[in-house]
């Protein structure tokens, strides 16, 4: 009996003791791997880095559509415009927008208006890129976790958000900030005046997309462009790192190691080598490599390399050129692009201004690549280039912008607005038979959205156009 009582009390006491010890013993669920909060500057670093990669990802997604690049293999889906799954690119775009939303809230709370302004500009850019690729996308129900199946917003309405974000961004960048941006900003290192120019340049880019539409105002574009970049020194770019190579450089390195990629389209080479146009473009040898025989030979989109070997018989991206040094910049937005926007906007009303902007756009790109003055002058005075203000055509503006925005995703927006009407542009071999001979107008919604948010995903075909492409 005594023993029984003893047991009872020991057991009781030990249970009570262990109960209080329990609490602290079990308090080990704090995440040892990830913090619950992050500094604004840490977010800025990743946002600027990832935004430049989003430009790369988008550019890589569409470079075969605008025939900068071509697959070495026949019937490759990226050449033939098949519905490919861009779940990864979609994730990256929304991942950066999520971080931007987070950073902007923190910046606003802290009165760090420069961070807020820069954040709004980059949110506009990432949203704009997403809309340009996919059309209607979720945004108004995004990031605040009120629903797990956010609805899709109208793409034209979203363009309103893009412009308004840029306007707010400009206002905040002009305001007094509690904290200053510094080396955490991989684009400008905290140079606020240039951020403001960048915001205007982007605004000009998104405004020009509706050229020909009802609400378009060329004057507004020109006024905006005037506050944009004034030289190549203003270019928005992220210079890559010894520890992390420029992704186009990586493609060139991979191709050198026979992991094929970065093959140049026949269309692009013929536009620059004197085939499609009478003048040979001095930029060609600064942008892409030659065959072993020192020639520029492209690959026909959709047809593959035929009997050509993997190496030496076709032009590809090669390492250590302007776009392909391991520490080359990834270009987000350039002075050259702005000049072509200006040329397009002025074309209807002010031909001389358009013509000057057209020449300046070419020159800015050539300066960027380091074309010699002699070669530059030769090209800029060649009859097929220096056509004079009155003979300037939209075709020429689009052609030169196409060359100047090599590998940049903005070109696909231009190509769609221009109906792919580049000179001698031919549809790819083995074109996706479901397109009925037409060319792709948008990306398919990614598999991840179809499976997770299927009820909201609009039913579209690859021929359905985004709002500004009508």
């Amino acid at each position, binding site marked *: 009996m005594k023993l029984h009582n003893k047991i009872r009390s020991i057991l009781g006491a030990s249970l*009570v003791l262990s109960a209080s010890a*329990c609490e602290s013993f079990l308090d080990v669920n704090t995440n*040892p791997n990830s913090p619950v909060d992050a500094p604004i500057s840490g977010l800025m670093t990743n946002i600027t880095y990832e935004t430049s990669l989003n430009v790369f990802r988008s550019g890589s997604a569409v470079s075969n559509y605008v025939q900068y690049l071509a697959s070495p293999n026949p019937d490759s889906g990226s050449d033939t415009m098949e519905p490919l799954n861009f779940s990864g690119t979609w994730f990256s775009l929304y991942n950066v927008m999520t971080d931007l939303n987070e950073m902007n809230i923190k910046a606003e709370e802290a009165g760090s208006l420069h961070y807020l302004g820069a954040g709004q500009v980059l949110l506009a850019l990432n949203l704009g890129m997403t809309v340009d690729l996919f059309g209607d996308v979720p945004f108004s*129900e995004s*990031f605040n976790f009120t629903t797990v199946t956010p609805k899709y917003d109208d793409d034209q309405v979203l363009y309103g958000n893009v412009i308004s974000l840029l306007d707010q961004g400009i206002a905040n960048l002009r305001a007094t900030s509690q904290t200053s941006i510094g080396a955490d900003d*991989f684009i400008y290192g905290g140079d606020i005046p240039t951020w403001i120019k960048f915001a205007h340049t982007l605004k000009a880019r998104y405004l020009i997309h509706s050229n020909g539409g009802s609400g378009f105002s060329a004057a507004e574009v020109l006024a905006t462009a005037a506050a944009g970049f004034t030289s190549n020194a203003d270019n928005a770019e992220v210079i890559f790192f010894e520890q992390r190579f420029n992704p186009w450089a990586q493609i060139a390195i991979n191709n050198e190691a026979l*992991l094929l990629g970065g093959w140049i389209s026949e269309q692009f080479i013929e536009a620059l080598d004197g085939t499609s146009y009478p003048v040979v473009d001095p930029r060609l040898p600064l942008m892409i490599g030659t065959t072993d025989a020192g020639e520029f030979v492209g690959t026909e989109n959709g047809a593959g390399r035929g009997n050509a070997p993997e190496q030496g018989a076709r032009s590809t991206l090669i390492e250590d050129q302007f776009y392909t040094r391991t520490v080359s910049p990834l270009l987000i937005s350039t002075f050259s692009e702005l000049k072509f926007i200006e040329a397009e906007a002025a074309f209807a009303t002010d031909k001389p201004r358009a013509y000057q902007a057209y020449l300046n756009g070419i020159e800015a790109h050539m300066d960027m690549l380091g074309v010699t003055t002699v070669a530059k002058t030769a090209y800029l005075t060649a009859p097929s280039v220096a056509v004079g203000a009155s003979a300037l055509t939209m075709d020429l503006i689009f052609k030169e912008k196409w060359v100047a925005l090599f590998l940049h995703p903005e070109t696909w927006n231009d190509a769609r607005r221009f109906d792919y009407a580049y000179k001698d542009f031919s549809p790819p071999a083995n074109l996706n038979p479901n397109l009925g001979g037409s060319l792709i107008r948008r990306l398919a919604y990614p598999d991840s959205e179809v499976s997770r948010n299927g*009820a909201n995903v609009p039913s579209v075909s690859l021929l359905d156009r985004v709002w500004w492409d009508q």
Partner: protein
Amino acid sequence: MKKNYAMTLLFLLGFLASVPLYAQQTVKGKVIAQEDGEPLPGASILIQGTSTGTVTDIDGYYSIDVPNADAVLVFSFIGFNSKSLPVGSATTLDVVLATSASDLDEFIVTAFGISQEKKSLGYAAQSIDSEAITSTRQQNVVNALQGQVAGVQVTSSGGAPGQSARIIIRGINSLDPSADNQPLFVVDGVPVDNSTTEAADDRAVRGMTNRIADINPNDIETMSVLKGAAATALYGVRAANGAVIITTKKGKAGEIRVNFNSSVGFDNLVKKPRLQDEYGQGFSGARQENSFWPSWGANIAEENDPNYVYQDNWNKAFNTGTLIDNSLSVSGGSDKATFYGSFGRLDQEGIIPFSTWSRTTAKLSGTVTASEKFNFSGSINFTNSGGNRVPHDRFLERMMYWSETTDVSDYINEDGTMKTYGNTNPIYDARFATYEDDVNRVIGNVNFNYSPTDWLTFSYRLGADFSSDSREEITPGPMGIDGSLALDPLGRIEETRINSRDLTSNFYITLKKQWNENWNTQLRVGNDVFERRFDRVTATGEDFVIPGFYNLSNTTQIFAGQLKSNRRLVGFYGDLMVDYKNFIFLNVTGRNDISSTLPTDNNSFFYPSVNLGYVFSENFELPSWVTFGKLRASWAQVGKDTNPHVLGAFFVAPSVFPLNGQVGFSKNSVFGDPNLRPELTTSIEFGTQFAFFNNKANLDVTYYKSNSRDQIIPVPISDATGFSSYITNAGEIENQGWEIVVGGTPIERGDFRWDVSANLTTNRNEVKAIREGIDQIVIGSQFGYVGSTVTMILKEGQAYGNIYGSSYTRPGAVEGTETLDRDLPQLIGANGFPARNGNQLILGNAVPKLFGGIRNQFSYKSFEFSFLVDFRSGLEQYNQFGNFLSAFGKQEDSERRDQTIVFPGVLANGEQNEKPVFLGQGVGPDGVNYGAGYWRNSVRGVSENFVNDATFIKLRNITLAYNLSPELIERTPFRTARLSIAANNILLYTPWDGFDPESFSAGAGGNAVGFTGLGFPGVQSYFVTLNLGL
């Protein structure tokens, strides 16, 4: 301390108020089995002619008061012949009981290593013995359970050396695609780690090992499978999916015994897809020597060129795998102490070149009976395992790309570079891109039992399971030789160090009382503490400065990462067993768990169970041919926590940083619901067990139903929400089914004996509810070309495992129906080809509706022969391999590429299609350009073509053994000698066109089993084994 504790305390202490006291003249002793000298716990001792009696304790000891020296004690135990002994002047009576001629497999090792009479269980449990475990020669004990136990589905994830195998008991309980739905593995009373840590990166799946494979099957005495929540309530949350209780071999009192076991085996590919051999490298029917396309080229016969012949690469690429397994054990002991020690070494080479695994084990265990009141035991098991893990998905993908007219086995140049026409050679890659793991693991436990009186025992058990896993991945970069194709443009090395430590502490008190001849009770209360710490450090270097020198310091870009976790559980439990007249058995349990992984407000949860067994054959007069009959019923709950460190939202620093001295942060894409509650599974079970004709035949039937609600699921959500995954209590799943076990000895005549046992399981499940606001939960998806990606999706009211994907358009389909009806006619488009429907329809279900196995054993004099057949049916899987074959023109069907046919089906206007179309590439005989052709334009983009019936019947094992006869063995130094030959998986019947449909790509850890991917192909094996005993 939460409210629940108070309840638990009351529950536990309520039973303590009853303790016997009577002190008279006593007889004590121990009851052991004649066969193995093991103590018999629960044996009954009755004073003849009276109703006074007792039962033996866990170690076989008993103590009984007798009126006088004339008393006769009757010792009895199910499955043994009873024995009557007069007491006389003895105060100690040790008794040896012999097994009765035909026993009923009566004992089951249940929770905490307690051997329990199966007769007394109110739930279904099944055990298999060492012979059945080792006869299949599986190096992984999970595989040894294949087809042997009702309700248990074992799936080998592939044929790689050391590759994981998955075990699921009574269906999926947790819907979380990454949840471990596998049972808890318990070795000698201590739970051990059975996780499968796949390679950290998603570049390649490598078929890693599930950790229980570190146990040498030769050391195992028995395994019992506890299926329902009732059986496992005492182990708590970690046993929510059941438990596999492994009891290892122990030393026995008597002379020292030595056993030697040696086995040699060979593996071959068991099955291949049907492949075409008529067309070679190139595209559009044109031969191209360096084309990326392996078999869309010219007709080989028409080319008639010795440089363009079919190479039979699929047979050249796979080797004959080998397995060599040796083990030696020494055991023995005295009345006071026993020991068992063993060494084992296994070396295996797989059918994919350069895939290897080896395992070295050493084990020492011992028991000491210090006094009648105190005994202790302990064991320590050391394992070193690992090998080179060839990434099977990548190997098979590269096989897919490899030209059918170029010899794949001619893969290396004299200078060591890859010999290739352009594509990466799979064998070269397998040889030089290595991934080696090296696991050192120690599992140990110590047990103390102290019985101050005959009705009270204090027990303590401490278990530890440490493992360190050192992994090195090397992908060579360019070797600096022009024109050579490197495996990686820079080269990379990744060093991974994993340290894992499990500690389990279990203290319990056992109180026993035989109230009178009718009533016998046993109460156990205890406390259980568990901790698992895990730490993985990864360092990756890229871009080797000196080619071929593989060290992190020889790279220009270095990234590091770390993953730590800590999970702790504290449980309090009580277990009351009541036995009335040895034919009604009632068992009530209660347990309260507190988990560190849940929010503090929800982390303590109580769950009870009750079960009842009624042996009516001891209560009623039954026909004489009914030897035994029992009914049982149980109701039980069990809770389940979540993974550590998932609550809330976090920020992560991507491993690419620091860059320019800056570290970037990004919001983590996973959000853990801060109000997460524990999952709760409630299960009911009814069963009956019969034995007929003096145990010549037996039958066991069980019906079970379990509902798991508040499922904790990482729901994949739109990236546009700001997260990609939301961990929350999101649903309820119901599993129900029948388990039938039939067995017996149809023939026993002279020296000949035939035993048979068969099991059959049905499982039906339904997603009963999904949280409001979530329409569906994506379990996983697997890639298919151009819109043929398939997704496993959960929707309310549907079964788990539905595979969604694209299909052919069928005009007659009922509006709004979600399930594809393959019997309806297809719509043929204006181009003459079947039209594709991109809407996601249910194309099949990946959970088998019916599975089972049958094992036959024959013995005649010194010969034994046995075979095990198992099957599964009623399931479909996604054949990703088929999808790739279609894209690359390698499947047999593509031999029709020179044909022009009319697709059967209806046109949009309802008329029958009559338009002939050419199936090949380019311009057909009709002058129409067919582009990339039927298979690339149409077939590969339609998921329906690749969601196929994955039913199979396998001859899982066949064994012939010869035991050296006693007359012969007397002339040798050996006590026993046995030679056996065995074969596994040599017969496979399945409608599946591919490799063995049992292989799947995800590894044992995941639940997305419907995706076969490019898994490591299944193998058939042959073994020769020699056992010698000294």
